[in-house]
Structures are given as C-alpha cells and as structure tokens.
C-alpha cells in the first residue's frame, strides 16, 4: 500500500506522498471484492491503530494507521451505536487490500476469510443442498 490514509482528524498541514483518500468518503461503505471479483462484503467499519477513542491527541504524535476492514456485527454498531466485544469482530487485515477504486479489491480469495463464513454456511447447509444448487444455470 503506497496510499496514505487521510482520516478525519489528520493534520491538515501534513502532506503525505501518493494518492490521498478520505476514509469516510472513499473507503467506508464501499463494496469489497476478492481476487476473482467475487463480492465479499461491504466496508462496514475500519479499525485504526495508534489512536485511543476519546483520548487527547498530542501534537507531533505519529498518525494513526488503518489496520483492518471490519464487518459483520460492526454494521449493527454503526446503525444503532454501542460497542461489539473485540472477540466478536470480523476483520479483514488491511495488508490484504490490493487496490482502492470505486471498490476495495483484495489480493486473496474470499473463500478463506472469516468475513465469508455466513455465506459459506448458507451455501453449504441450505442452498447447496437444493437440487441444482451447485450447477451452472442453463
């Protein structure tokens, strides 16, 4: 990743090299596709490292970095407020992100990600069991 993340509270005078993205505008609520362009999820939230919620940011402190895309219960948190326990978070590590455009593209297959477990469960236990469910349409 060469792009620098420009979070809402980033210092306006800091001029990072590379493409500047607004996390809120360009990343949140975007579709996440895997290596084979299969939809995985939507960016429901982002996990930031190096910043404490509610804590004062000292001048000159290092900028926070985006560590993961959060999904699953995180959508409900954003809709209705509150906090999910860290153990229940479904995260896609930021290092798996290959490209950001009108969609967020991952460099790996979605089949191995935790974020795909509901899809896999429904596929394996419900849809895949109906005759024809595993065949191409004719």
């Amino acid at each position, binding site marked *: 990743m060469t792009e620098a993340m420009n979070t809402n509270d980033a210092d306006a005078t800091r001029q990072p090299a590379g493409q500047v993205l607004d996390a809120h505008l360009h990343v*949140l*609520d*975007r*579709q*996440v596709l895997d290596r084979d362009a*299969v*939809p*995985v*999820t*939507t960016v*429901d939230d982002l996990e930031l490292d190096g910043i404490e919620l509610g804590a004062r940011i000292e001048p000159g402190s290092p900028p926070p970095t985006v560590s993961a895309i959060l*999904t699953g219960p995180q*959508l409900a948190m*954003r*809709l209705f407020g509150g906090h999910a326990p860290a153990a229940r978070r479904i995260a896609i590590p930021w290092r798996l992100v290959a490209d950001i455009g*009108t*969609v967020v593209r991952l460099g790996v297959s979605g089949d191995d990600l935790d974020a795909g477990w*509901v*899809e*896999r469960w*429904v*596929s394996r236990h*419900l*849809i*895949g069991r*109906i005759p*024809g*469910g*595993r*065949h*191409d*349409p*004719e």
Partner: protein
Amino acid sequence: MKRLFAVALGVLTAIGGFVDIGDLVTNAVVGSRFGLGLAWVVLVGVVGICVYAQMAGRVAAVSGRATFEIIRERLGPRAGLANLAASFLINLLTVTAEIGGVALALQLATSVDPGWWIPVAAFGVWIVIWRAKFELLENVTGMLGLALIVFAVALFMLSPDWGQLAGQALQPGPPAEEPVATYWFYAVALFGAAMTPYEVFFFSSGAIEERWTVEDLAKSRLNVLVGFPLGGLLSIAIAGCAAVVLLPRAIDVTSLSQVVLPVAEAGGKVALAFVIVGILAATFGAALETTLSSGYTLAQYFGWSWGKFRRPARAARFHLAMIIGILIAVGILATGVDPILVTEYSVVFSAVALPLTYLPILIIANDREYMGDHVNGRAMNVVGQVYLVIILAAALTAIPLLIVTGAGA
C-alpha cells in the same frame, strides 16, 4: 446481423419489462373511468423511465456498480437502510401482485380458481430463477409479451370514434362527474405504474449480469429509447380499449376478465388467446424481475455475492433471500387478498418510494470518479432535475390523495 438481433431482443425485453400487472390494471381502470384523459401521464411516465433507466444503465455499464451499492455508498448505512427497507417492502408488494397476476392469467385460460394456481406460479418463478440463464428468461418472456400488441390491434378493430378519443387525450383535466382529487389520484397511480423502481434495479443489475461496458452504451440507449416508448404505446392502447368498450357502459374494472373484455369483443377467441399469452408472459416476466430485484437490493446493500451468472451455491444468501421473498408473497396471497387490490396499492407506493432511488442515481451520474467522461450532459441534467421535481411532487401527494379519495373509490 447478430448485433441487430441483440438490439431487437433488448427492445423486446424492454416492452415486456414495462407492461406488467400494474400497467395492465391501472391503465384499464383509468380508461374505463377517464377515457384517454390521463394518456398524458403515460407520456410523462415513459419519458421519466427513459431518463431514469438510461442514467442507471450508464452508471452500471461505466462504473460496474449497481444501484443499491451506490445508494449505500452515498447515503451511508442508516439512510441507506431506511431506503432499503422502503424499496424492499414495496418491491415485495409488487412481487405479490405479479405472482397473483400470473395466477389470474392462468385462471382466465383454464377457469380454475387462482388459489390453486398461486403455488404453481410461485414454484414456476422460483425454478426459472434457480436454473435458467439470464438471457433465456429475458428473451422468452419479452418475446411472448409482445402478444400484448393485440391490445393495439383490438383498438383498431373496434373502429372507435378517433375524434372523440383524441379529444379526451388532448383536453386533460378531471371530467365534470369525477372529483378533482380522484383524477389526480389516478394520475399518480399511473405515473407509479410507469416508473416502478424495480424496473431500474433490474435494468442496472441486468447490465452487470450481461457484463455491459462502455461499448454497450449505444445498445443501452437504443433499448431504452425504443423499448419503453413502445411499452407506453401499449399502455395507451389498453386504456383506449377500456375507453371505447367499458366507459360507455359504466363497467368498473375489478378483475382481469374486464381488462381483456374489449379485446375479446373485438377479435373473438383468437384475440383472447393472444391476450392471455401476452398477459401470462408479461406478469411472469415481471414476477421474475421483481423477485430478482428483491435479491439484488439486499445483496448490494450488504455486499453479498449476487447474480444469475453465478451458480446458486456461489451466491447463496442472494438465492436464500429470493426464496424467502417468494414464500412471503405466497403467504400474503394465501390470506385470500385480491391480487388486483394489491396491484393498485403497489403502484401508488411505488410513486412514494421513487425519489429514494432516483436522487442517488442522479448524483452519481454526475460524479467523475465513477463516470469519467460519461457524466450527464447539460441537457440530461436539465431533464433529470425537472423529473426530480415531478417525482417529488408525485411522492408527496400520493398518500394524502390515497386517503382523501379512499383509494380512488
């Protein structure tokens, strides 16, 4: 030659996709009460759906993003969810109406009570969505839906007083014997029937199913500009038939048999056979489109894998959502509610929900990040904004008019 065929098929699709149970019933009801006095609304609606579908198709072809992905991105999760809930519920109402419409068409053909046909129709819709290729279901229903041209033929065979029909069409305004509110209620209903949101969910998601790119923009434009106006002409022919046969005898349209009565009177059994095939294809096609749209909207909001080009196990939640949607529609119909009544409500609520999906598309069609050089031109934006005003006016007045007029009674 192959290209010509592709366009021809697209055009057929648009006709089949435009005329559904909502247009059939609403146009016949309006024709039997106001003659062609509301034909202007069909014109306004056709231009509107052309503008809307053209923008949504262009956004899908250029950016590869379907309507509800964009709505979530632009409105955020909360407003997006409210939008999803409204659009999804109204779409579900339309699914119910269309499946009911298939059952009613089968009843016309067989005289077997529609209660028996509802599970058959619902299973038919599901099995086609489950197994058939996208192009196949589009082309077959579009082609058979063309049989509805029999409404236009019937209008000529009835040899009506053309001067009188033209007079109704050219002098819009409520007739003396009907209250002003009722006239405007039906105007909004007709507008909602012409500009049903599912048509756009389906059109934009369909563009992605068929892997449209920038090179397909001309095809998209032709599909829209030929298909929807032809659908509009059919709508006016339906209203015209009702105006000639039902209006003078003061017959109120409360069932599908009254919608087809003018055709049967003009062309006898052969015409009746054509119109039944046409209605069956149009409602079945619309049932497929609305069911798919319910899956598209949910999957695109939540970022699930979707699309008919994938095998069902690779778009599991998308297919599960559609199965549940069909079951709910069957459940609603099993209460014995009249599908015609469901239809009448669904077109009014379609008008209410329209701005929710129209506005984000209008905004994205102007966003260079998504559209590059293919953003709206100035003329398109002027038309787009005029329609924004019309759509807002229809949406805001729909429910007050529904209450004041007692649903047009």
